């Protein structure tokens, strides 16, 4: 305890803030992960099945999805926050606060995740898809029973990557009062030159990142039966 008090003079006085910020980060990350995960997965799968040579080849849908993803990825996050404020208000009733931060976080990370999923699924062996087609599997069955299943190890690895990027992104949520550890590190620690707060916040983030990576690696290894 003495050690902590010595090296983290400011941080020790801010126990509540740390608890709250950790909670906020977890909350934003979790909800965003779920929502952006579903949306990104849907778009990623959509891109894969409608791409030229895909099982539901459709130039129009593919191009629309592709363009939307690129469009969303072109907008710097800070601007995204502002641009979609009306949408945020519509969805969560307010454009500020932790919950409101989730909307731009979703829009900021879903397209990224969609690309990751697309990349992951484009590695699924064409021959296996054909095998499924040959027994009469329809598009839905092929998506759920082949693509998402055969691509799972890679999907997990990509999800880990996205999730860690997402934690990074929540640091920006401070701009609209979202709070969180990143905000604590930047706007309390960094802006106020309280380095120990920055370091303490980063250590907690580090723990989250390591935990996610570890769980992801173990899980991916568990479901990877290719060797």
């Amino acid at each position: 305890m003495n050690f902590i008090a010595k090296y983290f003079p400011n941080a020790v006085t801010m126990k509540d803030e740390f608890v709250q910020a950790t909670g906020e980060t977890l909350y934003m990350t979790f909800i965003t992960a779920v929502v952006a995960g579903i949306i990104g997965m849907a778009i990623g799968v959509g891109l894969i099945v409608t791409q030229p040579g895909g099982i539901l080849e459709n130039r129009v849908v593919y191009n629309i999805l592709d363009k939307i993803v690129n469009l969303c990825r072109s907008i710097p996050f800070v601007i995204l926050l502002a641009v979609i404020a009306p949408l945020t208000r519509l969805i969560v009733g307010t454009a500020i606060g932790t919950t409101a931060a989730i909307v731009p976080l979703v829009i900021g990370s879903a397209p990224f995740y969609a690309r990751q999923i697309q990349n992951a699924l484009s590695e699924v062996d064409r021959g296996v898809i054909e095998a499924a087609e040959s027994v009469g599997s329809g598009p839905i069955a092929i998506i759920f029973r082949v693509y998402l299943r055969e691509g799972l190890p890679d999907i997990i690895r990509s999800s880990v990557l996205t999730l860690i990027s997402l934690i990074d992104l929540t640091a920006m949520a401070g701009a609209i009062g979202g709070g969180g550890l990143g905000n604590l590190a930047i706007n309390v620690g960094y802006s106020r030159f309280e380095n120990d707060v920055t370091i303490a916040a980063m250590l907690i983030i580090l723990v989250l990142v390591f935990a996610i990576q570890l769980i992801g690696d173990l899980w991916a290894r568990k479901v990877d039966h290719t060797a």
Partner: protein
Amino acid sequence: MTNEAIIQLKDIDVTFHNKGQTVTAVKNVSLTVERGDIYGVVGYSGAGKSTLVRVINRLQRPTAGTVEVNGQDILGLKPKELRVARTKIGMIFQHFNLMASRTIADNVGYPLKGGDLSHEERQEKVAHLLDLVGLTEKAADYPAQLSGGQKQRVAIARALANDPEILISDEATSALDPKTTSSILELLKRLNRELGLTVVLITHEMEAVKEICNKVAVMDAGEIIERGDLVTIFSRPEKPLTQDFINTATQVDQAREKIFKQARTLGLDDHHRLVQLQYVGASTDAPLITELYKRYGVVSNILYGNVEILQDTPLGNLIVVMTGEPDKLSAAWQYCQDAGISVTQLQPTDPEVA
């Protein structure tokens, strides 16, 4: 066996375009498979066999031609109809195409997913199929843990899971040892006999063709160059390619070569002739060699022989040295020909060093 056509390919062309190049893998092929047939398709590596059979269930859309399976115009089917049609066509892929993420049991059970069977029925069926291919022990393993032949057997079991009416088998026994091959062929024959399963069997193993096919088509460079019922093809192959295949399979070519190498030691002269005798069917019932001695005092020494029974018809292929008086030899020769046996005198030239 009814004479109803279950698969009818008409004027099929398949052309691949790859960065400027075009490869015509299948050229103007028409093929009719009747219900209950076990139709063998043989041909050189790269002849277009795999491409052709992929047309049957529209995994490969032909560039031209029509495909009728079970009375349906396959190329005109809507996606949903096609899916239903496909459930009746089992397919064993040359490269197995197993799902790496599923256990062996799940791979085999895959076609049953979303079907009418209860979980227990499905499990039971999978267990039965695994038993048929001898992989019960590996049920919980993943494809990466299997040997080549084991993977192939998984693919076979999977193709049979849906109780298909048609089975398309692309080199389904190419990675299997003779004993396992034999048991798989037995299985197919039984399904054919008992359930009327129609089989299109791509293979390069002529033994497999001999063992279970009733018809054979020979492909070369994208075309079917010869086709017909098994015995005809094997006893009277018309195209050199077909002859080559049959000879290579029965090793008559190799035998001839070896005999030629030893030709000098055979001491061929007026009194000895090296001949190849080929006969089909009843002619074998007559004890030919004894007969030749009885009638003409001609002694025949079999240097190479292959007598086998195809579809209940015996087929003989012998290389013998006949020894006797020159005129008797000629008489014996005549006798053979009259008995419907094809006789060829072999002239060993100086053995070429291959």
